Each structure stands twice: as C-alpha cells, then as structure tokens.
C-alpha cells in the first residue's frame, strides 16, 4: 500500500518533469525560430553574385563581314568596353617581365620626373637603400624603362589585330543573329570609344499577340539554368495550338531536350499559361498554331 503510494507520487513527479522538458524543448525551438527570423530580417543578407559569361571567339574565328548592315544596340555596348580595356590589358601582360628589378618599377616614374630637382635626388637612394643597391645606376633605370616600353609596344601591336579580330567576329555573330531573326532595320549608331552608342533595330516583324503570349509563358516558366549540368543541346521546340478563346488545346514537342527537367518545366509553363488571351480578330476563327523554342537563355519564337 505504502509502496504503491510512493510509486504514484514518483510518477506524478516524473510527469511534472516531463511537462517541463517538453515546455523547454518548445521554448528552445521557438527561440531558434525567432533567431532565424531575426537573421532573415537582418540588414546583411548573404551576397549572391551572378556571373554571366560572355563567350568571345578565339583569334582564329571568323572575321568581320564587311558591309552587312550596322550593328545594333548590342554592339554599341561591347565596343566601348573592349577598346579602353585593350591598352591596360596589354600593359598587364607585360608587367611580370621586370621581375628581377621590382623596386625599379616603383621608383622609376618619380625618379624620371624629379631628376632635375636636387633634394629629390638625395632622397631617392635613401629610400631604396634597404631594398636594393641598384639606385647607384640611374641610367640603368632609364634603359630598363625604354626596354619595357618597347616590349609593351611590340606586344600591343601584335595583340591589337587579334583583339580586333575577336571583336569583329563577335560583332559578326551578333549581326548574323539579328539578320536571322527578321528583317529588322538595324540603325544603330556604332559604339564609340566613350561608349555613347545609341542603337535601335534588330526587332523584326514581331506579332504583338505572339510577343504577349511569349511574355506570359516566360512569366509562368519556372526554370533555373543552374539545375543543368551543361547547357549544350538544351533546346526544346514546341508547337501549341491556341483556340479562339485563348485555350491551349494541344502541345506538341517537335524537339525535346536531353534534360527531363527542362522538358517538364516547359510543359508545366504551357499548362500553367492556359488560357492565354483570346485570339485577336485578325487571326480569324479556328485557332492558330504557334511554335516556340525554349532554351536556358529564354524563349524564342
């Protein structure tokens, strides 16, 4: 009798501690949740860097086809970026050459400018003494500088045409793209060195209804190119048949991508987009068939 009473008391005590432990766990979880919320609302979100790679053809690429229309807006952006970079890049590549005399490089410019001033001449050896004994021969610095200049000139002269070739081939590719998209009148003012190019063109005869539905499908397309291991051959060609009321009645895959993820995402996007806006009266009745090309870069018509 006494033992059973004791047992009951012990059980009650244990139940109390069980409730306390459960409450504590709940509290810990809630505090973790609050901490997470606090972290989420903190003003320092983790940095996300998106890197979009621009692939330029190599030096052996196709050269610029002359007189095939003027470059559009894309060219006006690329040209000013390339031209100012060309000179510093050439210098950068040459920089590692004077490795043997690293101090000379830092001392050289001020030395050259301040040679006529006597007090500077006195200061210079004092500065460079602990590092190198070379300041004893200022004439050598001049020679080294001249050599450097010559080598830089030579290299920039050699790489200049190659760079222009790269640029030219990129422009040619862009032009081909623009011309293949339609008969758009490329009236872009070519990019100047200062980057003040303004361009217009490359639009082609875009149907406003098609553009509209393409933008709707694009919005509904949930796809991340990061999920693909490589984007080679990732292209889905689809034909959809749109009824008068805008309903997509048929989705035909003309060409599927190797990735099931891309194919499914396209299918889901099209299904999600239905019904589309009703067909304009220009198309008549009976519906139309429109083809789209889905690539990791976006939707083409």
């Amino acid at each position, binding site marked *: 009798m006494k033992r059973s009473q004791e047992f009951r008391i012990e059980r009650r005590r244990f139940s109390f501690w069980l409730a306390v432990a459960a409450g504590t*766990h709940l509290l810990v979880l809630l505090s973790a*949740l609050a901490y997470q919320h606090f972290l989420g609302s903190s003003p320092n979100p983790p940095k996300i860097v998106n890197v979009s790679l621009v692939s330029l053809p190599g030096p052996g690429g196709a050269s610029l086809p002359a007189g095939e229309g003027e470059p559009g807006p894309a060219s006006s952006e690329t040209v000013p970026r390339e031209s100012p970079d060309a000179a510093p890049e050439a210098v950068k590549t040459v920089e590692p050459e004077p490795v043997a005399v690293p101090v000379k490089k830092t001392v050289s410019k001020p030395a050259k400018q301040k040679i006529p001033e006597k007090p500077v001449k006195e200061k210079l050896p004092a500065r460079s003494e602990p590092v190198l004994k070379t300041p004893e021969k200022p004439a050598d610095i001049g020679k080294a500088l001249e050599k450097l200049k010559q080598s830089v000139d030579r290299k920039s002269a050699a790489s200049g045409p190659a760079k222009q070739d790269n640029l030219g081939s990129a422009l040619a590719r862009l032009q081909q793209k623009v011309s293949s998209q339609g008969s758009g009148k490329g009236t872009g003012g070519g990019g100047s060195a200062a980057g003040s190019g303004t361009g217009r063109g490359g639009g082609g005869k875009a149907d406003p209804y098609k553009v509209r539905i393409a933008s709707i499908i694009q919005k509904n397309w949930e796809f991340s190119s990061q*999920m*693909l*291991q490589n984007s080679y051959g990732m292209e889905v060609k689809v034909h959809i048949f749109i009824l008068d009321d805008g309903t997509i009645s048929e989705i035909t895959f003309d060409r599927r991508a190797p*990735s099931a993820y891309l194919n499914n995402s396209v299918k889901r996007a099209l299904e999600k987009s239905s019904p589309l806006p009703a067909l304009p009266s220009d198309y008549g009745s009976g519906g139309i068939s429109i083809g789209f090309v889905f690539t990791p870069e976006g939707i083409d018509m």
Partner: protein
Amino acid sequence: MADSQFGLFSLVSDSGPVVLAVLFLLLSFSVVSWAIIAYKFGHIRKSRHESDEFLDCFFEISNLDRVFAESEKYRNGSLARVFRAGYLEYRATGKVGETERIRRAIKREVNVENKRLGRLVPFLATVGNTAPFIGLFGTVWGIMNSFHNIGLTQSASLAAVAPGISEALVATAAGLAAAIPAVMGYNYLIQQIGTIERDLEDFSGEFVSACLEKSDTPPSA
C-alpha cells in the same frame, strides 16, 4: 521561417515523411531523456543528502530507538529507508540469533532501493546508443531521396546536390543532439547511484553489527 532560405525550419519543412518521422522520434527521445535527467538528478541528490545526514545521526546516537525516531525525518534517504526496514525486522524478532533474518531483510531493502534509484536510467543509455543511429538512418534515407531527385533532374551541380544533403543531415544532427545529453546524464547518474550503492553495502554491515551489540540486552517493548 520563410525569410531565411537555409534556416533550420525550412530544411525540416522540405524533408520527406521518413525523415520527419525520424525527427519526431528523436525529439520525443530528447524530451523524455531530459525529463529523466532532471527527475533523477533531483531524486538522487536528495537521497544522497538525506543519507549523509542520517549517517551522521546514526553514528552520533547510540540508541537504536532514537535513531529510528530520527530516521522519520529522512524518508527519501536510501540509508534511512534501509535502516527502517532492518530495525522493524529487529523489533519483530527480538531474539538472539535472529541476525540472519535482519541481514536478509536489510539485503532485500537494499535491492529495492537499488531498483528505485536505477529506475528509468537505462532509457538514457538506450537513447545514447540508438539516437545517433536513428539519425543516421534518417540521413541515409534523405540522401537516397536527394540522389533520386538528382537523377530525375539530370543535373549533378552543387545547387542540385547540396540542399537535399543538408536536409538529410538535419536528422544526424538531431540524433546527436538527443544522444549527447543522454550519455552525459547517464554517466553522471550511474556514478551517483554507484556511490549510494556502496554506502548501502557498508551501512548494512554496520547496522547488523550494531544490532548484534544490542541483542545482548532484549529490546524494550
């Protein structure tokens, strides 16, 4: 929860049913473990404290009747409980040569006390041993699923692989979080219980010899 994409809760919410079941099991293990640790810690601490006080009282007072009266104050003390059981047996027999019965009664009470002290403690050992494996099971299951999904997406990029694995690893973390306190609590409690058990063994000998001394004169009443 929705604010942080990589938070603990977003990881848990994205997990599959098996991983969720594992996490729930581990959570319940953790709750019960902490309850046992807290309950037994208080219980054993009180028992040791009262036993020490009773032992002082036992050696100070030579009269067993007075010691018995004092032992009423220490109802949670293991030594006091053993003494009470032995004294009651001693009073019941009251004859010379009946020490064997007293010894047996004391031994019985010592066993009961050991059982009482050690109750629920093995659960801590079970949690300490099994929780990491249960967590590992959840992780393996989660990784299996994530690899399956990777196969479906046909992509093995870090962006596709990492979220699934990090979700799965939550189960291992939960298993360790449940196991570590359980093992620590188990070791501490076992050490404390061992000390009390040794005290009980020493005391039972002392008590029997005290009874033998008193047995020359028959107990009053």
